[in-house]
């Protein structure tokens, strides 16, 4: 019995101890044996990210759809087919040539939904703000979120705000989630590519990553390159108007085009053969990559998509893309082949071949 006037101290629940993952039990492809702590490579969008998701998150979240991870999930809900997606944005600096974290936050999720063929409709936006950040900066970010949502034709209908201690947040982190309806007859997924499909990219690659690097501390360089951040739902709608039977779509963000192609090749069990000379790389991206020792194939894009299209529809889809402002420079860059399933191979300008692998973690500037 508690004496009046005296409160008993609150009982704290014991912190549940989470058992360390049993690395021994993990099977192929490659267990995370080498890394008991999270390292930056886990966020690079390459092989390490894949392993973290496959071996740590999926088993924990166990549901019936582990093998179908596309950019968004397509769900049957009360008779409607709804695409649902989420994405988090941790870019630094917050404002960069051609865009901001606000633009990325909207277009990133809009595009993930579009990659399922959905018409994006509603977004949520969660903000994690670092103590000490200028309110004016947060206002500028919010402003951009609003403007980008209007351009993309979506509404932000719910959200959340939290503040973390100074030193724990890079100013602003944003998470968005979104939903949209998938039209009947549209079944787009990374596992659906088939031998013979044409591989089409919607335009110049490597632009966003170069724009970000140009303002990053320690690298700064002058360039007119501006991020290609853009909403792609309209472009996808134009492509679907030609045929609902698009096989696979992906927006190659972290990890670049090279990673996206590998993911689809792998999920579909087909080989991909590229013609290096047909991959559209703007001269300035090429030059910036030469300067830093990077490969444009692995540099992030925020307003581009790659499509796997049945061969008899390729020409018509390409024409429709080129009519759209965000697909004006679309090009066929390769095909799906039965050889080397799961691997992407490029024919170089000299007639030789090279494998286009998944990058390990972050791409880093090199000196050698």
């Amino acid at each position, binding site marked *: 019995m508690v004496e009046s006037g005296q409160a008993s101290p609150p009982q704290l629940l014991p912190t549940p101890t989470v058992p360390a993952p049993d690395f021994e039990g993990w099977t192929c492809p490659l267990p995370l044996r080498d890394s008991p702590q999270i390292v930056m490579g886990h966020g690079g969008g390459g092989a390490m990210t894949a392993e973290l998701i496959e071996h740590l998150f999926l088993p924990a979240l166990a549901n019936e759809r582990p093998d179908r991870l596309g950019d968004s999930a397509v769900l049957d809900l009360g008779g409607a087919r709804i695409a649902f997606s989420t994405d988090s944005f941790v870019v630094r600096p917050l404002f960069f040539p051609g865009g901001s974290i606000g633009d990325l936050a909207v277009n990133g999720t809009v595009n993930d939904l579009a990659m399922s063929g959905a018409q994006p409709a509603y977004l949520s936006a969660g903000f994690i703000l670092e103590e000490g950040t200028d309110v004016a900066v947060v206002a500028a970010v919010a402003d951009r979120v609003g403007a980008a949502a209007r351009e993309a034709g979506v509404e932000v209908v719910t959200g959340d705000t939290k503040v973390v201690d100074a030193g724990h947040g890079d100013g602003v982190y944003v998470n968005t989630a979104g939903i949209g309806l998938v039209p009947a007859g549209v079944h787009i997924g990374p596992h659906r590519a088939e031998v013979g499909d044409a591989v089409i990219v919607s335009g110049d690659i490597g632009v966003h990553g170069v724009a970000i690097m140009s303002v990053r501390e320690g690298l*700064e*360089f*002058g*360039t*007119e390159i501006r991020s290609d951040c853009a909403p792609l739902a309209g472009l996808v709608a134009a492509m679907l108007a030609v045929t609902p039977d698009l096989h696979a779509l992906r927006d190659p963000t972290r990890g670049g085009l090279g990673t996206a192609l590998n993911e689809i090749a792998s999920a579909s069990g087909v080989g991909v053969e590229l013609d*290096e*000379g047909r991959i*559209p*790389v*703007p*001269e*300035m991206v*090429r*030059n*910036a990559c*030469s*300067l830093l*020792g990077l490969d444009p194939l692995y540099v992030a894009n925020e307003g581009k998509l790659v499509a796997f299209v049945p061969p008899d529809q390729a020409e018509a889809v390409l024409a429709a893309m080129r009519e759209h402002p965000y697909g004006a420079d679309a090009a066929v860059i390769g095909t799906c082949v039965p050889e080397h399933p799961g691997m992407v191979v490029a*024919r*170089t*300008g*000299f*007639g*030789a*071949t090279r494998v286009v692998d998944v990058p390990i973690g972050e791409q880093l500037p*090199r*000196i*050698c």
Partner: protein
Amino acid sequence: MCLAVPGRVTSIWEQDDTPMGQVDFGGVTKEVCLAYVPDLQVGEYTIVHVGFALQRLDEESALETLELFRQMGELDAEFGDHWGRAATESGMPRPAGTDDTAAGETVGRETTR
């Protein structure tokens, strides 16, 4: 060893008594230390490694080298299947990726934009 790329000097100034320059790499510009090639002039080309100009690039020499490459085997350019001929003459097998149908397309194709 290593990654050094050619660029054109577009401006020069002094910082802490050290000559610095703005170098243009085909539209990408970077501040570069010119201390090791102190007599570089605006408009000249230099080879840059980790933010330092290491040597002047001799444009005449570059163009001469390319011209020499162009002149190599010029007569033979008139005569069709070079790979096959080279293979026959040297007694070596045809190199990979140069089968007849591919020869005209792959190797000759424009790779730069």
